[in-house]
């Protein structure tokens, strides 16, 4: 009996082996490696040598104005886009489930950004916002029409660029959230709404006391993944402002990590690792806070 048990244990390990090898080689090992790099001072990837071990990398990164700018950008992006996109998605999906006419059409329209190629989206945003020799961009035409002064959204003031980045991010993440929320909303038993109707419940009360609590697990899932996604933002900024994000003051933490590795100022895996580990701690902290809050507010 004992032998058979041991045998089956060996079998189980054998079956797990491919997954363990892959995860080990491409996830666990790099993770550990990054952690180790972040403490090796002056690591040179060509000669595979380093001067010593300590916190210098962290100290350097934390004093690097580019990193601080990236942290500031990332936090602004997170704080603006996560609540706005989740709230907007909630409104839109609630609207979608309330209408019967043209629902499919609207659903398709709202889902389009999800299936559109990033380059095509970038082009559209260029037409909307970018100043060229021929035009100031669609948005500026609108501003002119209302008597305002044109703004350079791509190479102009910081707030304008941040506005475009937030706008773009919200627009990109909205379809997925709407999709998830619409299915959560339609899974609420219709009889519960009928019961509320018979009880004479006002619309707002139905929404806040019944609908929202019933879909709160989904909303919470979207908030957590939204936070994580926004903290990892990078490609959106590149699509809008090009690869030299530091110059544009539009870098994000992930962008900083990338630049430290491969950018013009790159070749510093130690600094990149330190920044990555810092990002890891930030996301971990925020997610823990989220979990604590949700335990109080997410129903059943």
């Amino acid at each position, binding site marked *: 009996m004992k032998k058979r048990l041991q045998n089956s244990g060996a079998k189980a390990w054998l079956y797990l082996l491919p997954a363990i090898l892959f995860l080990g080689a491409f996830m666990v090992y790099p993770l550990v490696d990054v952690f180790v790099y972040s403490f090796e001072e002056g690591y040179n990837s060509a000669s595979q040598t380093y001067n010593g071990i300590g916190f210098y990398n962290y100290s350097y990164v934390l004093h690097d104005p580019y990193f601080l700018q990236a942290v500031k950008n990332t936090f602004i992006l997170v704080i603006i886009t996560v609540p706005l996109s989740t709230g907007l998605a909630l409104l839109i999906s609630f609207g979608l489930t309330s209408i019967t006419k043209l629902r499919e059409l609207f659903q398709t329209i709202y889902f389009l950004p999800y299936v559109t190629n990033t380059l095509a989206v970038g082009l559209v945003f260029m037409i909307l916002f970018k100043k060229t020799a021929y035009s100031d961009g669609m948005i500026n035409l609108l501003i002119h029409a209302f008597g305002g002064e044109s703004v350079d959204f791509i190479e102009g003031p910081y707030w304008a660029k941040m506005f475009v980045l937030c706008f773009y991010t919200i627009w990109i993440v909205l379809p997925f959230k709407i999709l998830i929320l619409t299915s959560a909303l339609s899974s609420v*038993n219709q*009889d*519960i709404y*009928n*019961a*509320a*109707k*018979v*009880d*004479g*419940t*006002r619309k707002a*009360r139905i929404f806040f*006391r*019944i609908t929202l*609590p*019933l879909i709160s697990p989904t909303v919470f899932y979207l908030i957590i993944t939204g936070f994580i996604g926004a903290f990892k933002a990078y490609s959106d900024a590149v699509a809008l402002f090009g690869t030299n994000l530091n110059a544009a003051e539009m870098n994000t933490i992930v962008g900083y990590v990338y630049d430290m590795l491969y950018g013009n100022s790159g070749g510093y895996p130690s600094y990149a690792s330190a920044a990555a580990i810092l990002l890891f701690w930030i996301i971990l902290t925020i997610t823990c806070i989220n979990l604590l809050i949700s335990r109080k507010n997410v*129903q*059943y």
Partner: protein
Amino acid sequence: MEVTLKNLTKKFPSRDKNNPADVIAVNHFDFTIPDGMLVGLLGPSGCGKSTALNLISGLQKPTEGRIFFGEDDVTELPPENRGIGLVFQNYALYPHLTVRQNILFPLQNLKGKDKLSKEVMNEKMLEAAKLVQMDGLLERKPKELSGGQQQRVAIARALVKMPKVLLLDEPLSNLDARLRLQTREEIRRIQQETRITTIFVTHDQEEAMSISDIIVVMKEGTVHQIGKPQDVYDSPKNLFVAKFLGTPPINVFDGTIRDGGLYIGEECILKVKCLKDSTGNALREDEMRPVYVGIRPEGFVLSEDGALTCKRNRVEVMGRDISVVSTHPASLNETIRSIISADNKVNTAEECVKFQLLPHKVFIFDKETEERIEFEA
């Protein structure tokens, strides 16, 4: 509160391309439910009974006709202004709220001059919870309750605003057999205590018969018969009603009336006279007339010189009485089931059993219209 339905009709547009005619779920309902009664809407599934309930509750709008609560025409009123309590088939309790919050919910919706103070709300909530005997479990959530308990919470929530009419949609269908018996007694007790006019929907004739003051037997959107359960059972208007009520079900035979007698096969089982059809016209008893003959299981009496001879299949002993299962070539049911007192001894040596029939347990129906033909034995 008296509930009156006048010419109430609900049609749904057909989704079937081959059959574009509207589906008539409720067809010209015209009856009054007296105040304080427990009324069962009874019919096979798809007969429109739930639709009828939804029309009364206001969740659906009728295509035609009017609904009155007492003197008031409520046809155009939304559900919340009708003063009804509605219990859904799946209870539809708010899953994230406790029993207390569920029962309080309708009260908290009151606004303006109807707004209640916290103390009054709590009092009313406790009263309703006590009525359904759930006052010990107020802090539980619905998923921590059994089906029967959830049902009671749903009833308490429907009753807490003291509705004029209480509506129950298949109240017992989600419960197991034992709980069903218990809960139907409970519904009866609550109704008797509150004297609220209560309408419930069911497809289970036993359920409807056992607790209703009045039953409404429906089929395919039309009302077939309304009356006290015993009256409907003893005097069904047509073959459908006779077949739908009673367990075991009624035994139906092909028969003929001729020469003043009712014949099944070649045997004259009863002498009949004074035949009257459903409209009250006298019919001649000496004229050959094909009919359906319905005989209630308790209408059979074992007798050596009985008029009806059946081939015996088996005898089932059920303690209080025994059930003789037999066959007859003219029977429309596969087997004939008769219930006789256990005092009788069935001669197991014989292959055939002979029955005498109790005339008031025998019903004759016209072969074409399936309407009842009344007779005197």
